[in-house]
């Protein structure tokens, strides 16, 4: 084509992502010249809000940042405080917290795989439209989500904004009999999750691989969820305390979120693809088996196949939840007492969407002086924009409407939680 052709694809309000977001892609004469993922969620002020609060309050305050992954925020917060104060929560208390985290993974992944992302692959505008032709997909999603929510309710005390975690452990350890009530729902969930892997593996995937650095936690013998060192596909291996020397955040003019980059340059991504790549061997045997069965590669480099990887993680989370419940013995005490220490604490855990890093500075009384929170979606912004550029470049001959939908599907590969990714310090206007 010799004539100059410029088109701009804009979606002003992205559907089927958590929070509010928009994207802009500019194509000039067959080249992608601009890609922006715009986050215009009202800026959040949590980091400022935390100053002056007690170190035991950070978990409940930060968990309000995200309604879909409150446990992730609570766990990263308590881990940071416990590590600063020289306490490691192990044994059955750790098992309970890991079980709770599995519950969150289950309900978050179930919502995303079935209700937010599957419609893209099946050619539907929304889950509601999909429900008319595929009611079983929706009822399966609801059953899976319910199994996760029940874990959150029994172990966390409440499904939404669970209240049972505290620095040093939990407020109340459930009885063995209470956990036993979860088993039937989880066993059904396991069957549904296995079905989800096979269903999603049968979707059509655009042919697109990316080569970004994959970053996740790692812990010998365990799939990364609640603790570990931070490693990557290109050999990074650091303690959480070194996070800020390896990863930097920058403001970009078109978005309220901060863009995360490797120190010294370089893009990376976090989340299921990263965990799957670096810790495949620690998935439960059932999860590993079904992953191999459906032909997932290790590492899987096609971000569109995230939906399959997320489904494998669903199998793992349900499997592990059942194992933790079977092995549970009521602990002697629900928590270890933690005395505050002046200093800086770092906590990194794996939210459903990826690595979530918290850093707190507290004084000798336990008062929070400063906080820094880096959510997974902030870290994935650069990867999302890189994928948009790459996908669009290969699909320029598609009609605009289809191209626009492909762009949205590309963004949803990351299950972005836009509400987490904005945490401005300066707040001028408050909107409801």
């Amino acid at each position, binding site marked *: 084509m010799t004539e100059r052709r410029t088109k701009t694809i804009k979606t002003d309000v992205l559907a089927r992502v958590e*929070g509010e977001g928009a994207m802009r892609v500019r194509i000039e004469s067959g080249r992608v010249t601009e890609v922006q993922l715009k986050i215009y969620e009202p800026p959040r002020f949590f980091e400022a809000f935390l100053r002056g609060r007690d170190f035991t309050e950070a978990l409940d305050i930060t968990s309000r940042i*995200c*309604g879909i992954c409150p446990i992730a925020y609570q766990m990263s917060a308590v881990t940071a405080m416990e590590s600063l104060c020289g306490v490691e929560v192990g044994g059955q208390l750790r098992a309970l917290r890991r079980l709770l985290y599995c519950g969150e993974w289950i309900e978050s992944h179930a919502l995303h795989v079935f209700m937010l992302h599957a419609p893209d692959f099946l050619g539907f505008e929304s*889950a*509601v439209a999909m429900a008319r032709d595929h009611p079983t997909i*929706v009822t399966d999603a609801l059953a899976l989500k319910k199994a996760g929510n029940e874990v959150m309710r029994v172990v966390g005390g409440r*499904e939404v904004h669970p209240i049972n975690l505290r620095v040093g452990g939990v407020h109340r350890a459930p009885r063995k009999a209470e956990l036993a009530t979860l088993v039937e729902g989880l066993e059904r969930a396991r069957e549904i999750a296995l079905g989800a892997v096979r269903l999603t593996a049968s979707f059509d995937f655009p042919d697109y691989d990316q080569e970004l650095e994959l970053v996740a936690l790692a812990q010998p013998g365990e799939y990364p969820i609640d603790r570990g060192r931070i490693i990557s596909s290109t050999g990074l291996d650091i303690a959480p305390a070194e996070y800020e020397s390896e990863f930097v955040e920058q403001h970009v003019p078109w978005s309220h979120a901060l863009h995360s980059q490797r120190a010294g340059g370089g893009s990376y991504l976090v989340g299921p693809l990263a965990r799957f790549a670096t810790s495949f061997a620690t998935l439960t045997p059932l999860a590993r088996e079904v992953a191999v069965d459906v032909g997932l590669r290790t590492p899987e480099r096609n971000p569109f196949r995230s939906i399959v990887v997320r489904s494998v993680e669903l199998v793992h989370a349900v499997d592990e939840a059942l194992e933790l419940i079977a092995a549970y013995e009521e602990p002697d005490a629900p928590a270890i007492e933690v005395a505050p220490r002046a200093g800086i604490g770092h906590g990194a855990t794996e939210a459903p969407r990826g690595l979530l890093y918290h850093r707190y500075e507290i004084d000798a009384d336990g008062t929070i002086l400063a906080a820094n929170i880096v959510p997974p979606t902030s870290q994935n912004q650069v990867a999302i924009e890189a994928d948009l550029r790459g996908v669009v470049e290969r699909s320029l001959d598609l009609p605009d409407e289809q191209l626009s939908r492909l762009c949205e599907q590309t963004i949803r590969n990351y299950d972005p939680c836009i509400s987490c990714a904005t945490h401005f310090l300066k707040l001028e206007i408050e909107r*409801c």
Partner: protein
Amino acid sequence: MIEDRGEPIELIEACEGAQAAWLVDAVCSGARPGTLHRFDVGERALPSGLFRVSTHRFGLADALELARALGRLPPRVTVYGIEGSRFAPGEPLSPAVAAAAERLAGALSTELAAAFAAVR
């Protein structure tokens, strides 16, 4: 009577088999705080965007339409929305909203009593 635990999507299960449902929720539409909105959802979908004060849940409108698509929506569903005023963490209920909630509770008691009487 069920107090929603923050998961509109669970309404789908809660509504199943019911002949009628009444739902009350907060709304953010720019109207005066305390304004009462009323919608009959049996025939028509809720206007989307009105009940999205939480961005993290599959919203109320979507949950009801999902229920409808699955054939689980009761024949009669009435949604009341109270225009909210304060949404920041830790803020108490505003006087306008508290007053509107009182008024609605009264009106609902009457409406529910009439509905139950009609069934007998």
